[in-house]
């Protein structure tokens, strides 16, 4: 092998053919084996907020102090998905998985693990069920049942390093199609794989591509929809931050397939790190010749630019997203015409979600047979969920389609925090619905969840326990919907507002008999009457909660009770005089001075002042446990709060 590449020249290395890519990869891999030890510090947004940057700096300076820069490399990686445990540090060569690492822990890790090959046990994850310490990522139950295809690089590679990406087979799929496959063949492959859009609606990706391919036009566009607007969902963020090249490669393949030479990644403005990583990645790929003119000498041109969103949930809808890129207000347009035929600037445009595009290179590289074996008969591949809420292991999980909700929540998620009872799981964000305990054995899939009144959506999964009020959750989602409605069509603009009002009334103890029926009728009108996908789905949280938790609604309306003790108008705090030790803790902590009493004088809450923030209960020493929260109609319950 005529290895002409040396590590020094990689900066200036140009990939001008499939062979030169292979060459680079081999060189890089050969080089990698020389490095003895690696410290992978997660620098995803989650871990960053927990201080991983300081941890990384501590490693660098610590290693520098020992003059071991050549033997030990510190690398920043993307998100591991187990953000709640961050900052996460994986120390090689054994890949010991440390969690909750602080900069104070770094000297110990260096001296123990890196120098002495000893494990710092206190930083390991402990299985809450068995109490066993887990050394490696794969030992942790959170990861055990996952199947990480899309997320395979996240947490393992430096997201901004094109070399890292190439080492893990990056751009191999693209090189393959460019040299071996016709665009039609690529589309066929994707169609056979059964890949469906991961953005929510689950439209078969191959068919979308085919439609756009079949329109003859000099200009076509690929848009990567990174406007991950569902509250509580952050998988696209992690992929864009942690493995941006996968997204780029997916777009390149899609561009080749439909005949587009321009790609646009539309990213939420709230994701600055994703914008940064994507921009860096695009610049690097362009430098190397992987983007631009006549890529790999095959006559294929492709460029990508990043466009930042400006804060509008509805821009996740395809036509609104296009309007936004065109510099207009993000108001959806009626379909047809579909974007695949008449999209950005009136040209055929394929819009794929981040996760969908990240799947593409995997499918091309491994073949559709491999991919279609994963999942179920109708739903192929994997799906990433962001598992949040009252579950023990909060984070990103990628599971095979068909995995049951129970497996996700209890096996991967470790069950409910604090030993409380499971109440419901909400999937699909504002467009989705709540699924009750009796349906926990439902395998996840587009149709199965739809049948249960929810959707997969982009993959938000909110776990609720007995302390979550279901009406409050419905109200929350409608509040979101009414604020995010673009406002142009009547049912969505005004229907969501009125639904919110009624739900708000119910949570404030002002519900009236018959409200449930009116909610259902309004939901129906919004669902059937709205112009775009946003309006059609936003009643789902209300419809599904009424379907499964009607009783709770009725309790609120008829009995003035909120069993989860969430709706402030329906609860009140009181101090059990027989338990109060008059310690003054709550009295001092109360933000509105609603507690009367004195040293040696049992405290009492002035209900007319109380805002029901719960601070008194929080600060009351557990051994006294003197503050209680009760619900039901009581006298004196001031109409405060909210």
């Amino acid at each position, binding site marked *: 092998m005529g290895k002409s590449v040396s590590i020094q020249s990689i900066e200036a290395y140009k990939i001008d053919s499939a062979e030169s890519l292979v060459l680079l990869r081999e060189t890089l891999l050969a080089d990698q084996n020389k490095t003895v030890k690696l410290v992978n510090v997660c620098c995803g947004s989650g871990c960053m907020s927990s201080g991983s940057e300081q941890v990384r700096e501590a490693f660098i300076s610590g290693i520098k102090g020992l003059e071991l820069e050549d033997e030990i490399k510190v690398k920043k990686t993307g998100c591991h998905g187990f953000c709640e445990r961050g900052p996460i540090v994986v120390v090689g060569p054994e890949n010991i998985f440390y969690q909750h690492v602080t900069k104070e822990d770094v000297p110990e890790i260096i001296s123990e693990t890196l120098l002495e090959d000893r494990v710092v046990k206190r930083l390991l994850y402990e299985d809450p069920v068995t109490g066993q310490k887990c050394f490696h990522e794969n030992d942790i139950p959170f990861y055990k049942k996952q199947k990480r295809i899309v997320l395979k690089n996240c947490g393992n590679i430096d997201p901004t390093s094109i070399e890292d990406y190439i080492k893990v087979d990056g751009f191999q799929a693209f090189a393959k199609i460019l040299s071996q496959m016709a665009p039609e063949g690529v589309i066929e492959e994707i169609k056979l794989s059964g890949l469906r859009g991961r953005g929510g609606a689950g439209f078969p990706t191959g068919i979308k591509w085919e439609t756009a391919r079949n329109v003859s036009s000099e200009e076509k566009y690929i848009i990567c929809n990174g406007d991950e607007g569902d509250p509580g969902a952050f998988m696209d963020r992690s992929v864009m931050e942690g493995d941006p090249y996968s997204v780029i490669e997916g777009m390149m393949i899609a561009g080749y397939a439909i005949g587009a030479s321009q790609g646009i990644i539309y990213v939420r403005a709230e994701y600055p790190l994703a914008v940064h990583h994507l921009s860096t990645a695009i610049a690097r790929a362009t430098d190397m010749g992987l983007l631009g003119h006549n890529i790999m000498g095959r006559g294929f041109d492709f460029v990508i630019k990043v466009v930042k969103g400006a804060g509008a949930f509805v821009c996740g809808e395809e036509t609104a997203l296009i309007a936004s890129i065109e510099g207009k207000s993000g108001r959806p347009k*009626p379909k047809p015409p579909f974007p695949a035929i008449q999209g950005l600037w009136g040209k055929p445009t394929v819009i794929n979600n981040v996760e969908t595009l990240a799947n593409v290179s995997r499918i091309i590289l491994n073949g559709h047979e491999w991919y279609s074996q994963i999942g179920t008969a109708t739903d192929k591949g994997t799906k990433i969920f962001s598992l949040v809420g009252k579950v023990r292991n909060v984070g990103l999980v990628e599971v095979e389609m068909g995995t049951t909700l129970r497996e996700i929540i209890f096996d991967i998620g470790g069950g409910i925090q604090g030993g409380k009872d499971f109440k419901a799981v909400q999937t699909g964000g504002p467009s989705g619905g709540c699924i009750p305990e009796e349906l926990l054995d439902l395998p996840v899939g587009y149709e199965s969840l739809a049948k249960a009144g929810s959707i997969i959506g982009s993959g938000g999964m909110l776990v609720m326990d007995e302390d979550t009020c279901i009406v409050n959750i419905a109200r929350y989602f409608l509040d979101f919907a009414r604020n995010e409605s673009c*406002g*142009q069509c009547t*049912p969505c*603009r*005004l229907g969501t507002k009125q639904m919110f009002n009624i739900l708000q009334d119910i949570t404030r103890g002002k519900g009236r008999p018959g409200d449930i029926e009116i909610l259902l009728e309004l939901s*129906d009108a919004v669902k059937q009457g709205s112009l775009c996908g946003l309006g059609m789905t936003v009643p789902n949280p209300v419809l599904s909660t009424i379907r499964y938790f009607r009783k709770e609604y009725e309790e609120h309306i008829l009995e003035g009770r909120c069993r989860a003790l969430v709706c402030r108008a329906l609860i009140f705090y009181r101090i059990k005089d027989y338990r109060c030790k008059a310690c003054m803790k709550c009295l001092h902590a109360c933000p509105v001075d609603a507690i009367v009493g004195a040293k040696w004088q049992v405290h009492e809450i002035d209900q007319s002042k109380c805002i029901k923030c719960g601070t008194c209960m929080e600060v009351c020493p557990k051994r006294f446990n003197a503050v209680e929260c009760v619900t039901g109609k009581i006298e004196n319950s001031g109409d405060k709060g909210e």
Partner: protein
Amino acid sequence: MNKVSLNINGITVKADKGATILKAAQDAGIYIPTLCHCPDVSSIGVCRLCLVRIKNRRRFEPACRTIIEEGMVVVTDDPEIQRLRQVILELILSDHDFNCLLCPKSGQCRLQELVNRIGFNEHRFSRLEHVAKDLPIDTSNPFFDFNPNKCVQCTICVRTCHEITGNDAIDMAYRSYDLRVSTFADKPIKESVCVSCGECMERCPVGALIPKKVEHPTREVKTTCPYCGVGCGLYLGIRGNTIVRARGDDESPVNHGGLCVRGRFGYSFVNSPDRLSIPLMRAYDEYAKPSSVVEVTEEGRPITLPLVKRDGKFVEITWDQAIKYVASSLAHYKGDKIAAISSARCTNEENYLFQKFTRVVLKTNNIDHCARL
């Protein structure tokens, strides 16, 4: 043009290819309620009142935007559609300042018509929150007011301002339930780039954009606008002997119903109290009275034609006096001592007559007018 046949409510209807369901239904005499539809501008299908059921389609489709297809089976009304429309109408009403008694639009209001045709469920409607928006009424424009509290966000005005006038003075600003028609930076209309043509006002289906003066004419006269050279066809609405309204003539091949600010609101100069109504003549002091001119006396005041001094005041004279005076004065002069300037504002007949008068009576070709202006 090719015809397409489709089935609407069990009736076979033939309509032009490319027509919408709404158009086909209307032509066949089938009513479909609409609020945001206006035939002069593009349809955007946002009010959702015209939703109809189409066989083999998953969802209701807006009739105003859906193009007919051969063999299409459409149902424009059934209990489910009825209820959907009622809910939508209730929602619109809940957001509308429906003080009809004080509304100048009452009687011509599309919402009133919709309520009559669709009806609504009082129980449900009473449960909806009906908050007075209490937005300030924009009265800055001298010709029309904008009351956002009555606006139903149909965007017809915005589409009109964009598609018909190309002026784009207004657009839909903000979003969700704050969505509203707005000029740049929420400025009063007068301070915006609005050209006050009133096309939006003409098309507003409700009482949101209403003329400042609402006086209903008792008869209309078709005529041609007296302002610029475009010559728009217009109808003057008359009440008594006063013009109270002008509207564009839809059949005019020139303006197709459109008018600009001058054409629509500029007629009232005809009613101006400053109009000349009696011939005037300049009067001079006796001592300045020249010798060679005709005298017309009124109430003992000398009225003369001056030769040198020109600082007299006007006095009113009768038409007979005026005609006689002008005729006899002109008779004193010959041909090229006289010049006549005609007017590009007068009719063809008058211009013809004036040049004929100049050439035949005054015996000169010294006739011109402001041809260049």
